[in-house]
């Protein structure tokens, strides 16, 4: 019998990038889990916290963590939501519960110890954009080692690869010129490296970069990390 595991879907994936969620379920099934959505889940609380209303953020985060009570492991296919559920919780002094929150790549690399992966049906040259909130996860890089396992996938290095995409949650709404300026620098570096596919672990980054790219008439293709791994299955 398959081990059950919770999936915290995240709002942005739910609203904008459902393919990432479908891919997450396929990946988890491939590594031997029966993945089920956390019941009654809503938001991790990040929007309110980033806007300074810690009280509202705490209430929502508390609720989300409580929804997972009793589950040993929950997978989150978003770096920034995973960071909120862990680092954000400590900032807001939200305690209790024994659930381990895993960002998807972390879960595959560290918990499942995935060390091999099927090949891609068609070769792909890919720029991996590491989502900034990885820094709040205080975890080693799990994504480039995983992507390196995939035959047919070529990782392309770009200049300033650790730089932010400029999204920043509501920052992109309050500071649109700066936000898209940062994205354009990133997109420029990607084009300079001659890549056409961009992969990241956060729908926020992907949607932001894709939007700025399209507005500028660019033709890059944006995929969630989970979509790339699922494409091999």
């Amino acid at each position: 019998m398959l081990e059950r595991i919770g999936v915290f879907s995240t709002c942005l994936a739910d609203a904008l990038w459902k393919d990432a969620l479908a891919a997450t379920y396929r990946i988890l099934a491939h590594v031997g889990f029966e993945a089920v959505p956390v019941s009654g889940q809503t938001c991790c609380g990040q929007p309110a916290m980033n806007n300074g209303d810690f009280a509202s953020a705490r209430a929502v985060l508390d609720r989300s963590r409580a929804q997972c009570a009793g589950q040993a492991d929950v997978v989150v296919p978003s770096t920034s939501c995973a960071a909120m559920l862990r680092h954000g919780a400590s900032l807001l002094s939200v305690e209790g519960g024994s659930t381990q929150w895993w960002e998807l790549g972390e879960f595959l690399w560290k918990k499942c110890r995935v060390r091999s992966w099927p090949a891609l049906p068609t070769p792909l040259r890919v720029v991996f954009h590491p989502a900034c909130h990885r820094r709040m996860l205080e975890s080693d890089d799990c994504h480039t080692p995983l992507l390196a396992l995939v035959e047919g996938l070529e990782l392309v290095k770009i200049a300033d690869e650790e730089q932010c995409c400029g999204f920043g949650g509501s920052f992109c709404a309050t500071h649109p010129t700066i936000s898209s300026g940062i994205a354009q620098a990133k997109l420029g570096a990607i084009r300079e490296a001659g890549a056409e596919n961009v992969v990241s672990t956060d729908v926020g980054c992907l949607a932001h970069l894709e939007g700025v790219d399209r507005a500028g008439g660019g033709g890059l293709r944006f995929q969630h990390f989970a979509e790339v791994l699922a494409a091999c299955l």
Partner: protein
Amino acid sequence: MPLTPPFEEFRRSAGEGLTQKIRLASSTKVSQRKTALSSAFGDPDSARIHAAAIKDFVLSNLGTMLEAFEAAAVRRGIEVVWARDAQEANEAIEDVCREARPKGARVVKGKSMATEEIGLNHHLEQAGHHVVETDLGEFVVQLDGDHPSHIVTPIIHKDRHDSAAAFRKAGIVLASDEPEAIAEGARAHLRSEFVAADVGISGANFGIAETGRIVVVENEGNNRLSTTAPHTHIALMGIEKLLPRERDLALFLPLLAGSATGQPLTVYTHIIGGPREAAEQDGPRRVVLVLLDNGRSRVLHSPERVILRCLRCGACLNVCPVYREVSGHAYRHVYPGPLGAVLAPSLEGVEDYGDLARASTLCGACQEACPVNIPIPDLLLGLRRQATRQGSWTLWRRLAENDRAWRAALRLVPLAQTLAPGWRESHARLDNHSTAAQGEPHGRP
């Protein structure tokens, strides 16, 4: 908050040229920093964590350490003056300048952010003293009536032609606009200032509690000339700049130099032990150290306390995506960039500088680059909290506490195409992109 935040306004009016300059310079500095730190330390991260712990020890024992430092400095013949605020510091420094030459002293200055913080030049000039900045970048800033836009490289926003124009406007002849020619012009012009100066003023990167010595680092030699050639040397030092022991410098000097400019050490590290001795042929006859509080003791007891670990290396500016777009002037404060976004509202209040804390993507690159591991993103969040009415997001909270209402609301997100320029386009993807899991809650196939 105004409809268009000041940062946006600044970016729109500054345009692409400025941003290109800063991006390029910053990107170079970031790779130099990484190379320098990994060759100086087997494990740079462990060095950062150790340095943070030592600075935290200093902050926890600041009072006793200041007293120990003062006693040791006085034994060396250094005069120590305390200043509660900018005005007291300015007055103390002006007193010493007046003692050096009552009718207006000739003052040469090494680069110091603390003197910028208290507006020292203006104060001394008002009192009739002649003040010259001698760091190349700061000299250009002074000639141009400008402000530094970076705490380490003050004219990062200017190119060679801007700098050369400032020299010519001041009547200083240059052979060409080439950087070498500009530097030669500065060297020739400022040499007579060093020889003629009555007073030299510097900042201080570290004060050693154990021995009472003052440490100043630099690359050009102007700081050393300022603190050596004139009769009187005045150093202005924030009270948080102490280190417990001299041997702590073995950690902090390479950490600071590597983080600031990617060097193993700066060209000159001056360890100032007091005025010249009888048998010495040169060096100042009088050394005065001004200890500056100016809000630091208040920050010490605030949630932003750990910002006082800051070494002013500028690494957080160089990695910051927002700083790269707008440069230092957008921050409206002596201390720009991520460190300024914390320090300015902590020192001056969130009422006037709260918007700085919002002008960040919270990407965390600053903390990762910080040689004393200051959790800048967490501090920015805390400042946003102070400037926000708790419960102002109650409507959102109610929605998020009901999963059916939440899912209904999420369907509206793609329709709300006013979020951001990027997203306006991106939201169109729903029409043709995500079909696999449409209608299923949470995308379960």
